[in-house]
């Protein structure tokens, strides 16, 4: 009997050892973008390998090229990547095309992953699609307003504004007020030529991203619930008019061609009063080694209250060669301790337990404000042809900035947007 028991015990111990090393020697590959969060995780990878035996390789490409590189991979039966990150522009495309593995069951059997910890706005954007979970939110880039505190607090400017407009100089809470403020702030200030807003008129992504903030904060939208395009309604056209006015009178002359990089440098060099941009630009602009306005900028929600939401989510493609190991990695990198460490090193959080954790708030005191911004932010519509929609709208916006009539531009966009909704099978009569 004793021998039998010891056999059982030996068997159980052996089984535990084997299951512990069940993943040993496996290797997984992920396709990532060259943003700081990727490098933050890359530094933590040796710990993951030690814990599970799985070796993780990151392949890094540029965002724009990632989509082109992924498409052939996703339609083949077995691709090169075990897990991928999905940008919110594609978060409607990939599940609709059937390229992602639903994660509900994986989440259920993994206690370390608590879905309720994620901000609902993030889960709506890079989490659920048609009621099924396909991604775990990895990274956010919700947009808001960053502005120069030194100029806002300057008593001379305050007096001048009061005299000119009969109201005190304050953070704009509506799009109209923001444009007014930007025009006012376009001036010579302390020997430097300052522009009210550093705008990004480059088509298609920068201009659509920036303009969406204007659109949403004026109460407009791309489509209604029936997937009829409403971009050419009163709010939409007003957004185009105000955007055009700001870029003509409150922004640098080269703005219609500014991409993200050009606009950023105008602010960092001290030539702009404000900038509608990703919330994590604040620490970048406050970094003495990277910016001349360090210590002189702060963050506020987009005037009008609704900023554009953006983000990435972890996902497992159907063509993944090793789905189990991929999930092991995702559940590790999104476990609370690792997510919190990533945030402390400088990553961009997506969950309220990290946003409100004591250590994180101590290091980044403005994070509760950011959490509010992310929580109220709204993404562009996510469907099969989101990227094409952005191309169309970007083109029309760029033409409008160049002189085309705003109503005509939005009408032209509406025609094509309607066709896209129909082609995706979403249009409801």
């Amino acid at each position: 009997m004793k021998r039998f028991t010891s056999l059982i015990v030996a068997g159980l111990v052996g089984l535990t050892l084997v299951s512990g090393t069940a993943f040993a020697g496996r290797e997984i590959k992920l396709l990532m973008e060259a943003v700081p969060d990727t490098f933050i995780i890359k530094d933590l990878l040796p710990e993951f390998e030690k814990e599970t035996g799985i070796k993780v390789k990151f392949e890094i490409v540029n965002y724009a090229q990632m989509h082109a590189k992924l498409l052939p991979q996703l339609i083949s039966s077995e691709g090169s990547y075990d897990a991928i990150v999905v940008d919110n522009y594609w978060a409607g495309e990939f599940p609709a095309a059937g390229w992602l593995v639903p994660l509900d069951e994986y989440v259920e059997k993994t206690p370390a992953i608590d879905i309720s910890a994620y901000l609902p706005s993030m889960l709506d954007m890079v989490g659920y699609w048609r009621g099924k979970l396909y991604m775990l939110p990895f990274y956010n880039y919700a947009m808001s307003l960053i502005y120069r505190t030194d100029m806002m607090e300057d008593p001379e400017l305050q007096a001048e504004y009061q005299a000119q407009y009969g109201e005190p100089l304050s953070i704009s809470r509506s799009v109209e007020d923001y444009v007014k403020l930007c025009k006012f702030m376009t001036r010579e200030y302390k020997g430097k030529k300052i522009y009210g807003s550093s705008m990004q008129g480059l088509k298609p992504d920068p201009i659509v991203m920036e303009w969406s903030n204007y659109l949403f904060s004026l109460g407009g939208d791309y489509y209604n619930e029936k997937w009829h395009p409403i971009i050419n309604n009163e709010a939409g056209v007003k957004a185009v008019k105000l955007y055009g006015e700001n870029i003509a009178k409150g922004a640098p002359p080269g703005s219609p061609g500014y991409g993200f990089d050009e606009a950023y440098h105008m602010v960092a060099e001290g030539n702009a009063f404000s900038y509608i941009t990703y919330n994590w630009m604040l620490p970048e602009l406050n970094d003495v080694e990277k910016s001349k306005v360090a210590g002189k900028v702060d963050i506020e929600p987009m005037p009008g209250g609704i900023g554009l939401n953006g983000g990435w989510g972890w996902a497992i493609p159907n063509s993944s060669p090793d789905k189990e190991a991929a999930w092991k990695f995702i559940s590790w990198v999104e476990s609370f301790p690792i997510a919190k460490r990533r945030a402390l090193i400088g990553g961009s959080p997506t969950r309220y337990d990290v946003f409100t954790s004591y250590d994180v708030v101590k290091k980044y005191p403005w994070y509760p404000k950011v959490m509010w911004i992310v929580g109220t932010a709204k993404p562009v519509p996510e469907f099969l042809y989101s990227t094409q929609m952005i191309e169309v709208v970007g083109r029309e916006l760029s033409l409008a900035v160049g002189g085309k009539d705003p109503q005509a531009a939005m009408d032209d966009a509406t025609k094509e947007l309607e066709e896209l909704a129909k082609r995706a099978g979403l249009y409801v009569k």
Partner: protein
Amino acid sequence: MKKKTLDIITYFVLTLFSLGILLPILWIFRTSLAPRLISYKIPPDWLFRPTFSNYLDLAEMYEFLKYLSNSFFIAGSATLIIIPLASLAAYSFIRFRTGGESLRWAILGTQMLPPIVLALPLFVIFKYLNLIDRHLGLTLVYTSFNLPLAIWILMGFFEDIPVELEEAALIDGASPLQTFARIVFPLGAPGIMATGILNFILCWNEFLFALILTGDKSGTVPVILAAMQTERGVMWGVLASGTILAIAPMVLISFFVRKYLVRGLTFGALK
């Protein structure tokens, strides 16, 4: 016009042209050594303390040396394969009128298609042959896709070679292959050199197929340089240093190439 005057004009024009190329390059070089705060400053800081951190980041974080050597290997191999194949084919078109007009234009037609839609079928073939992310794969693709170009360029050069020399060799009893090797090849040396260089450069700079068909093992320089344009802005420091590192070996090689070119010509003149 006196020779001396013409010489002065020559030096003047060439220097002006060279400055037009060099000045931007020097600015890139400066950017590669500049801390981030300085790179965009206007008016620019002309004097600053240089830093090598960009080059270090390039090597460590971006594993640039791996991409650089991949590019060299792939472009070099493709060029070595293309030269003999294209020379023979070009000679065949010129001297033997093989396939008439239609074959040569059909071959050139393959160059007129934007490569975008060909990426997917190539991906499918590569998956089947297990050539994804293998050096051999991209080498073969570049060889195939640049072959028509190489053939046509060489056709242009071979046309000028006088037929009489070849006929003399044939009468002396040389086989067509020997004629080709002993007469045409040396006389066409500048053209062959030019074709080789151009082909190398085409492979060096090609982006789309490299993006779709390689991974982290066989990635090339254009792919990693493109990755430096991130959603957090362009990483100017590493981009500048990457560009400089990609240029430097080529400049050195071109010194060698010129020597060989001159030798090839004088050899040809000794006919």
